[in-house]
């Protein structure tokens, strides 16, 4: 199978994000960048399919030079090669999808994997947009994959509100991975050494204009301390009233 995994670099979940001077971007000076956690499920899914059916796993990442690091980490987990689409402009989900789609359109991919979302901007859009741009079927938020190479199809289980949905897709297709799909492997030391000699091809990005513009970014207001209305059942009516009138949640 010809498998592609699109991987992104995001701020570490531990990082305390600061808004930059311009009030529109994240201050990247002091943050530790990591492989997007959902992409690890996508990588593991691709590697398992390769283990089963053979073939090749290629990682694709669009971004600045630091994105090579996430490609290397992915290659350390397994797989064969990387494509770094070099672009320094930030863009939005649409322009990122357009850049990836243009790099992938003649790839001959059987399946293109994504994480269900990047944990920085949380749009959950790039994977399905790429599918749309390439005219491919897609399944998002996938927690189980059954591939049938001969019949050129996959059956995916995806999470929907309150339950699971099973969908069948013909290949080629796009899948976005949800936590629970598998247990991503650790990059072993031998994998890390082997990754050093796996090729990463650098290509330039197709021109793509973002459709949205970030005009402001701010941190949520600091959490207020809780309020104790009472310690026995006499406090219940007041609690209900406040939940209804003030918090407007019931």
């Amino acid at each position, binding site marked *: 199978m010809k498998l592609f995994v699109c991987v992104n670099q995001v701020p*570490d*979940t*531990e990082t305390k994000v600061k808004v930059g001077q311009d009030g529109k971007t994240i201050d990247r000076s002091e943050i*530790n960048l990591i492989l997007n956690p959902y992409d690890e499920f996508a990588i593991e899914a691709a590697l398992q399919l390769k283990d089963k059916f053979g073939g090749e796993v290629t990682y694709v990442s669009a971004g600045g030079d630091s994105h090579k*690091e996430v490609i*290397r*980490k992915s290659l*350390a987990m397994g797989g064969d090669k990387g494509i770094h689409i070099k672009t320094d402009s930030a863009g939005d989900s649409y322009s990122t999808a357009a850049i990836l789609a243009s790099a992938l359109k003649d790839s001959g991919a059987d399946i293109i994997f994504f994480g269900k979302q990047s944990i920085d901007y949380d749009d959950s859009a790039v994977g399905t947009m790429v599918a749309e741009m390439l005219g491919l079927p897609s399944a998002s938020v996938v927690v189980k994959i059954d591939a049938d190479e001969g019949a050129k199809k996959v059956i995916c289980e995806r999470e929907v509100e309150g339950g699971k949905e099973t969908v069948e897709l013909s290949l080629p297709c796009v899948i976005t991975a949800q936590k629970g799909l598998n247990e991503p492997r*650790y*990059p*072993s*030391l*031998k994998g*890390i*050494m082997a990754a*050093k000699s796996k090729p990463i091809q650098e290509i330039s990005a197709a021109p793509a204009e973002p459709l949205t513009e970030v005009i402001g970014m701010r941190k949520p207001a600091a959490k207020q301390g809780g309020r104790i209305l009472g310690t026995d059942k006499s406090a219940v009516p007041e609690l209900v009233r406040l939940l209804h009138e003030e918090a407007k949640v019931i």
Partner: protein
Amino acid sequence: MVQFGGVDYFNIESLLSAEEKLVRDTVRDFVSNEVIPIIEKHYREGTFPSHLIRKMGELGLLGPTLPAKYGCAEMNNMSYGLIMQELERGDSSIRSFASVQSGLVMYPIFTFGSEAQKDHWLPKLASGEAVGCFGLTEPDFGSNPGGMKTRAEKKEGRYVLNGAKMWITNGTVADVAVVWAKLDGKVRGFLVEKGTKGFTAPEMKGKHSLRASVTSELVFQDCEIPEENILPGSSGLKSPLMCLDQARYGIAWGAMGSAMACYDAALNYAKSRVQFDKPIAAFQITQEKLVYMLTEITKGQLLVHQLGRLKDQGKQKAVQISMAKRNNVHVALEIARLARTVLGANGILDEYPVMRHMANLESVYTYEGTHDIHTLIIGADITGLPAFN
């Protein structure tokens, strides 16, 4: 629970290569996910988590600097140090296991062994299929192993071993013991396989420290081993001492792992524990403790970092390893003790890792050359006046 994000006040991270960071992150995740959740139980019960051996092998943590042809990762010494640091953040016994297997068993087989010994043992030890131990210390010879009584005699194409070793990590569970014994008055290394007639390895009980590690006696009573089980390249006491240099290097790194775990626990606790209407972290005495811990960790990290770079260039000196082991274990123990006080009564509970690290570090302080012995090694070097021979 928040994932451990490391302790790095001087951006030492920026001195690591991408590959070294990946190694560190792999082991850090492994320790967070597979060691920390189970280690207290093993510590309490006095058992080694043997299910982790194969996993460590799969990740490449055993003999990581040795050549790929033996199934090893062929990493540099910096990476080896980072592995030890992260493992000991989990528990000193996991690091001890890896130190012994890598520095005290695989290293001597690789360095002093015959081709046949290397081909036979190294791949098995790298994958974790086989476990090894290192028998140098004896009941009457600790700091001065040169006085050892264990003897080997050559007899009709075999060696016959007699004597006893004590305090041997992994002894009872080992498939192969690297045993140091005198042959015609000269210290040589021998490989003794588990189950060999005349060889027993009873476990030592009653430890208050390194409880999740197996420590054993090795007893040899007319134990006959084939002639080809001698390590042909070993010659004199300097051979086991070369092994100890490998392991001590890893200990100097490992101690920083314990220290980081204790500092992290103390910092988090101090920020959330409120007394006199304030988090205790707001009191100057607590801050002084935390600042001391972080400063000593930072100094210790820089010490092993430079030591690692020297070792990768083949320029490290044994006395530098002594200084790093001596300093880093000492400050780690101080940090563990201070962290214990910051946690108050909670500090003695096994809900927190602090007392476990503190008790473990008491062993680490003593093994691989006690703190005092390293003092005298460095002292002899700088004064030219050895305190002992």
